C-alpha cells in the first residue's frame, strides 16, 4: 500500500513538473489564433501546405533576439517553401517591456522586412503553454496524423555572436532531418537568452 501511495505521489510530482516546464520533445503542441503584425489573426492550421512549423518565441528588445533576427528571416526564406514556415510569437508583456507593444512589433517587422508572421501573445498564454524560458527559444513542430508533434526545442545555432563559421545550425539540421523523414539527432539544446518580461500580477 505504501508503495502504491509513493508511486501515485511520484506520478503526481512528475505531472506537476511537466506542467511547469511546458512541452518536451514528443509532446503534441497546441495551435493558437493570435494577431499578426498585419492585423490578421494567424493559426498554424492556416498553413495548408505545411509539413511542420518553426515556432520562434522572441521579442523586439532582447539583444540576443536582435542578433538572430536576420537568421530567423533566413530560416523562413529557406524553409517556408519546403513546408516549414517560421511563426514568431512575442513573449513579452507590453507594460513590463514598453519596446514590445503591438505598434512597436509592427514597426520592427516593417523595418526589418519580416516575411514571416510575428504574433502578439497577450497574457503569455502560449509562451507559458509551450514553456518558452527565454528569448529566442525555438520549437520545431512536425505535422503528424495525431497533431503537431514537438520535434526540437532550443537554440537556433551554437554561435550567437556569429564568430564561428563551423557553427552547428541546430534548427536547420533538425528541419533537414525532418524533411528526409528522420527524427532530429539533436532534439534539444540550450542557449543564453533574455528572461521573458512577464506581466506584473495585479495586487490583491
Amino acid at each position, binding site marked *: 500500500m505504501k508503495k502504491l501511495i509513493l508511486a501515485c505521489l511520484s506520478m503526481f510530482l512528475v505531472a506537476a513538473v511537466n506542467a511547469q516546464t511546458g512541452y518536451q520533445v514528443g509532446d503534441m503542441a497546441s495551435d493558437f489564433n493570435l494577431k499578426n503584425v498585419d492585423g490578421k489573426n494567424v493559426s498554424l492550421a492556416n498553413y495548408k501546405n505545411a509539413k511542420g512549423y518553426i515556432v520562434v518565441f522572441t521579442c523586439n528588445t532582447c539583444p540576443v533576439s536582435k542578433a538572430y533576427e536576420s537568421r530567423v528571416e533566413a530560416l523562413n526564406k529557406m524553409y517556408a517553401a519546403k513546408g516549414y514556415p517560421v511563426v514568431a510569437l512575442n513573449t513579452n508583456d507590453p507594460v513590463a517591456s514598453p519596446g514590445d507593444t503591438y505598434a512597436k512589433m509592427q514597426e520592427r517587422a516593417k523595418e526589418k522586412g519580416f516575411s514571416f508572421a510575428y504574433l502578439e501573445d497577450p497574457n503569455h498564454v502560449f509562451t507559458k503553454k509551450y514553456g518558452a*524560458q*527565454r528569448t529566442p527559444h525555438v520549437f520545431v513542430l512536425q505535422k503528424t496524423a495525431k497533431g503537431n508533434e514537438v520535434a526540437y526545442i532550443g537554440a537556433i545555432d551554437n554561435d550567437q555572436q556569429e564568430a564561428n563559421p563551423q557553427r552547428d545550425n541546430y534548427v536547420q539540421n533538425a528541419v533537414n532531418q525532418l524533411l528526409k523523414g528522420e527524427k532530429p539527432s539533436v532534439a534539444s539544446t540550450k542557449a*543564453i537568452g533574455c528572461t521573458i518580461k512577464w506581466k506584473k500580477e495585479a495586487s490583491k
Partner: protein
Amino acid sequence: MGKYFVTFILVLTFFGVKAQVKLLTLNELEQRVAKGKDTTYVVNFWATWCGPCVEELPYFEKLNTENAGKPFKVILMSLDFKSKLKTDVVPFVATHKIKSEVYVVNETDQQKFIDRVDKNWSGALPATLILNTDKQVRSFYEQAFTYEQLTKTISNVIKL
C-alpha cells in the same frame, strides 16, 4: 600647464579603470578558482541587458565588500557579446562603480559552456555558482537572489 597634466593623468586613470574588464574563458576561470584553494568564490553570470541581473548586482557587490579580507571573492561573468565589451560593459562597470572582478565570457559554443557550468542550467540569466576547492563545494543556482537569500545560501553550503 599643470591643469593639462592633471587632465592627462585623469584620462590615463580612466582608461586604466577601463582596462580592468577582460575576456575570460571557462578554463581560465577554473584555473583562477583552483589557485585559491581555501577561498570561496561566488561566480555570478549576468549581462548588462538582463534586468533581473542588474537588480541583484548590488547584493553581490555588498557581499564582496562585507567579506573583504576573508578568503572570499565575487567574480562577475558577463554574457554580453564580446563586441560589446568596450561599448556596453566597461561604461556599465564605470557608472555603477562596480568593485568586484568583472569579466566577459570568452566562449563561442554556448551549448558546451552552459553544460560545463552546470548540466541543469537552461541558459537563463541570472545564474550563480558557489565554489570552494578545499571544501569540495560546487553549488549552482538558476535564479535571482535577494541579499538575505544570498548570504543564507552561501552560509548553508559553506560554513564561513
